[in-house]
């Protein structure tokens, strides 16, 4: 072990001052210009209010492509202010502006205060992204991943952020770097665009008593993440009244990623359990890519299936994607992606579709 004079501070010691780090404010941002067009699809009548043939590219914000090329579905820009307020305190504000119809305008997705208890322990209070999936925390930051978007057979749920508190611990176990967090909070969505697809009228969604934990382990070329989240759910429709009141849902997730030489593998499994009162669903994806200089071509397969306790028709779909990322420089990338979506649902759903999309992502 090199560096005999190194020692890790005991967890409950006073906050450690950094050498030579003064209080400062940093501004960072991200931008994704995304365009897409459905090349071909099987559904000829509108799905809810969306013109079809169509492809749902972002469930949480209901970004839906049709046969007209559009830059106004997934394009977005975000800015973050990050202020260090003395030795142990810092504050972050992140605002994201979206072009998506129905979710258009700016929203405050992150507004948090961080307190460093010790080098390995931090507490955050405020508004944060809800880490249901591996990419949840940074799903808007296209530059940080190889595709135009993470596979939508998994990604996107009613709620993407929450208000609450979290405790995080970073440590090293033998050869593994570990990060664990525990979080608690709630979220209210006044006019939920996702739930609006399944219930009539204006749909209000509340997730309260969200309690969750995640663990991320990294060793050399391997990265693993486990997550468990439970919450109570209220769903009310302006036309149907109370749909769910305080029922308990449970979410389980597992992700495994490999970056070995020029190879990259991305995989994730997500299980949603509302079986006691409604349905359960399983979603999975597997992607394999290979870096060739500045290019990263990648094939990704994903699948979603739900089952309803009332024996109603189910939703099932699968997507095969080919994506190509080109790194323009160290802070920007250009991506091209082809998705072949197959709808195997027994319920009336969006139908098969092929989508071509292009994206320009940068961070600054």
């Amino acid at each position: 072990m090199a560096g005999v004079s190194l020692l890790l501070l005991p967890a409950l010691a006073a906050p450690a001052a950094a050498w030579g780090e003064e209080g400062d404010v940093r501004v960072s941002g991200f931008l994704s210009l995304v365009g897409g067009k459905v090349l071909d699809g099987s559904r000829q009548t509108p799905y809810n209010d969306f013109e079809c043939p169509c492809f749902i590219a972002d469930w949480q914000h209901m970004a839906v492509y049709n046969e007209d090329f559009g830059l106004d579905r997934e394009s977005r820009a975000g800015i973050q202010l990050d202020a260090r307020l003395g030795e142990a305190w810092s504050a972050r504000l992140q605002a994201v502006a979206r072009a998506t119809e129905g979710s258009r305008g700016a929203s405050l997705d992150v507004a948090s205060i961080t307190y460093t208890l010790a080098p390995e322990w931090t507490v955050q209070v405020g508004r944060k992204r809800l880490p249901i999936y591996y990419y949840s925390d940074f799903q808007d930051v296209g530059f940080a991943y190889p595709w135009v978007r993470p596979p939508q057979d998994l990604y996107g749920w009613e709620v993407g952020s929450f208000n609450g508190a979290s405790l995080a611990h970073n440590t090293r176990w033998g050869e593994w770097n570990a990060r664990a967090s525990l979080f608690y909070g709630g979220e209210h969505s006044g006019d939920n665009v996702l739930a609006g697809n399944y219930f009539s009228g204006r749909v209000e969604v509340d997730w309260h008593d969200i309690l969750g934990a995640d663990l991320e382990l990294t060793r050399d070329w391997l990265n693993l993440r486990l997550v468990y989240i439970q919450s109570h759910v209220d769903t009310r429709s302006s036309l149907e009244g109370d749909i769910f009141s305080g029922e308990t849902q449970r979410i389980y997730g597992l992700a495994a990623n490999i970056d070995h030489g020029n190879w990259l593998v991305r995989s994730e499994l997500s299980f949603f359990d509302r079986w006691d009162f409604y349905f359960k669903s399983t979603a999975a994806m597997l992607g394999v890519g290979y870096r060739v200089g500045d290019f990263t071509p990648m094939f990704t397969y994903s699948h979603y299936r739900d089952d309803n306790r009332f024996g109603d028709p189910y939703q099932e779909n699968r997507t095969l994607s080919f994506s190509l990322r080109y790194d323009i420089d160290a802070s920007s990338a250009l991506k091209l992606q082809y998705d072949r979506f197959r709808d195997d649902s027994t319920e009336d759903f969006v139908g098969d579709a092929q989508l071509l999309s292009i994206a320009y992502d940068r961070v600054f």
Partner: protein
Amino acid sequence: MHLALPPRHTRLLFLALGVLLASGASAQPISVVTHEDTPVASLSREDVADLFLGKRKLAIAGRVLTPIDIGDETLREAFYQAVAEMSAVRVNAYWARMVFSAQGRPPRKLPLSEARTLVQAQPGLITYVPAGGNGEFKIVLRLP
């Protein structure tokens, strides 16, 4: 849409550099350095990678060692390839995740000359410089 492509010869240079690094040969030896008075003798490659990627904090005499990153892209690329086998693009993508998910902030990035001056002036900072003629620093790790 702003597509600032670097000149063709620069891209070729980077490609050549990438090929060299991929074959295990580093383009230039690099020294990881700190002030003479920083109470640390040496660091492992993993220590340095964890420190610059914010995966671990190293506390010395009750204070946390502060990494200073370098703005020179060629040197930066060679450094991260040598300590973490990561390209500068991957390092930036990694930080994009950490920054926007409020998990951390990257080290301050300075031009090489400014980083040299700062690290020479103040104990507790750590940076990397091209090897050779580094008498003014304490070298904590040599990268071939």
